[in-house]
């Protein structure tokens, strides 16, 4: 049974069809690469699946439940977490606190619990902090746990976003260009990280322009162009697909984009 399944997912912005009748499934524990030229609909797809925008048509199923148009925070609680193309962190929080926000569930009567305070609450807080600190160590952010997020360099911001996405043990993580703007060393660290997530049984759906990264970690790759899936399969097969070459390079007379495979 698939973990994530979109059916006929369509998004029109005015006259422009950004995503056209897209059907895509992700299996539990699978690492899926999502590639395609700029404007192919990758970001729109992520935004539809994570409830940032509503689809014009079609549905999204996640863990055997129709989650079409669920808000992002409800999806997160259900086990579908995401990162952003440009890391979005809250200035004013430390690295540790940013992950704590994601870790701690807030109930509808949270205000009363906060007002009441009490020993059990303080104890719970210590337990959360301890657990998050360990997670930060594991991901390589242990040394800057107490630093304000605004002092982090770009590469560590991405790692922090991933740590935040993992905070409540999701079953699917959607990574939006996890290696963009990262150095080779940082990229190889992300590669290792994604492999370790997969080894833990997490499914990863990754949009990425770095072909080296996609081809080395993805079990399967889907190629989008003009809002449709034009190819899908194992990385090696997709790489040899003429339709994919055409999408990236154009016909014989040529486009400008060159993927670094």
């Amino acid at each position, binding site marked *: 049974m698939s973990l994530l399944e979109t059916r006929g997912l369509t998004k029109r912005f005015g006259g422009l069809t950004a995503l056209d009748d897209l059907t895509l499934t992700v299996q539990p524990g699978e690492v899926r690469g999502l590639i395609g030229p700029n404007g192919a609909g990758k970001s729109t797809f992520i935004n539809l699946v994570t409830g940032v925008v509503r689809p014009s048509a079609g549905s999204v199923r996640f863990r055997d439940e129709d989650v079409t148009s669920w808000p992002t*925070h409800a999806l*997160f609680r259900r086990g579908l977490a995401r990162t952003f193309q440009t890391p*979005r962190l809250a200035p004013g929080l430390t690295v540790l606190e940013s992950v704590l926000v994601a870790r701690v569930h807030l109930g509808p009567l949270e205000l009363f619990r906060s007002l009441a305070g009490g020993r059990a609450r303080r104890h719970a807080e210590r337990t959360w902090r301890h657990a998050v600190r360990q997670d930060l160590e594991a991901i390589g952010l242990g040394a800057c746990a107490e630093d304000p997020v605004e002092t982090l360099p770009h590469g560590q911001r991405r790692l922090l976003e991933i740590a935040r996405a993992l905070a409540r043990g999701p079953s699917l993580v959607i990574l939006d260009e996890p290696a963009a703007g990262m150095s080779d060393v940082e990229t190889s660290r992300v590669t290792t990280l994604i492999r370790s997530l997969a080894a833990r049984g997490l499914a990863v759906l990754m949009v990425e322009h770095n072909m080296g990264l996609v081809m080395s970690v993805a079990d399967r790759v889907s190629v989008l162009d003009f809002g449709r899936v034009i190819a899908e399969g194992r990385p090696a097969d997709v790489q040899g697909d003429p339709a994919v070459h055409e999408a990236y390079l154009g016909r014989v007379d040529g486009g400008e984009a060159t993927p670094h495979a």
Partner: protein
Amino acid sequence: MLLLATLIPLALAGRDYPLFLATTAVIHALLAVSLDVVVGGLGLISLGHAALFGIGAYLSAAAMLGLGLPWLLALVAAGLGGAVAGLVLGALSLRIRGHYFVLVSLGFGEIVRLVLLNWKSLTRGADGVIGIPSPSLGGVAIGSKLGVYFLSLGVLVAVIVLTRRVRTSPLGRAAVAVRADEMAARASGVSPALVKLSALAWSGAAAGLAGSLYAHFYTFISPDVFTVDVSVTVLVMVIVGGAGTAGGPLLGALLLTVLPEWLRPFRQYYLIVYGAAVVLVMVFLPEGVVGTLRRARLRPRAALT
């Protein structure tokens, strides 16, 4: 600070006017702390705080005069009423973004004021409510000005302690995330609606308590007391003192309560000087007095690292 707040009024015990000012300052401080939950906590500017204040005052007066409830229950009713009003304001503004909250809160304040003015059977309209009893605890009326002062101070301290507790709780942490970036907060599993409603409910509760203290201290209330002028003044207190800082709203409330007294010698030019003073603070200390002091203290340390 608490020590000063205790000692100075004791020294003023026999003199009514300074004590009256001190109590007013405490009620203003409660309002400022309450509004800062929204301004400093959520980063939203509200111009409807007088409505929450007024609802607390009218409810408290009605509870004692109409229902014959003891003062403590009237106080609780004012707090609950303020919280419900805060929730209504919050619910109205969930679908709107950023600065439009100012307009919604402004409209909310005007609607409440007009209801107070025109629902004559309930509020006695423009005549106001007179003869509101003094607070009483356990059947003993606290008639003295000094007693009411300390009662107000007690409520203020309790609200400050509880507000700090919420601010350092997971809810307070989530509020920082929501204020910075709602989308990122959602991606952390935080519902911005829950955070905003919680903050407005707590802010409303504190403003309601302030309303109750006001009603029983002044013993007279009318819709004229709860106009947008009050909302603006409290907002200025928060911003001059420093939104989102520990002592800022308190300092702002103290300054803006006492300043008009100091400026009395200026007579008709008083408002000009008052306005100029506020503008100068805003221009030169945009983070408020306390916010600027805190920054000045942090800067040398930042330079070292």
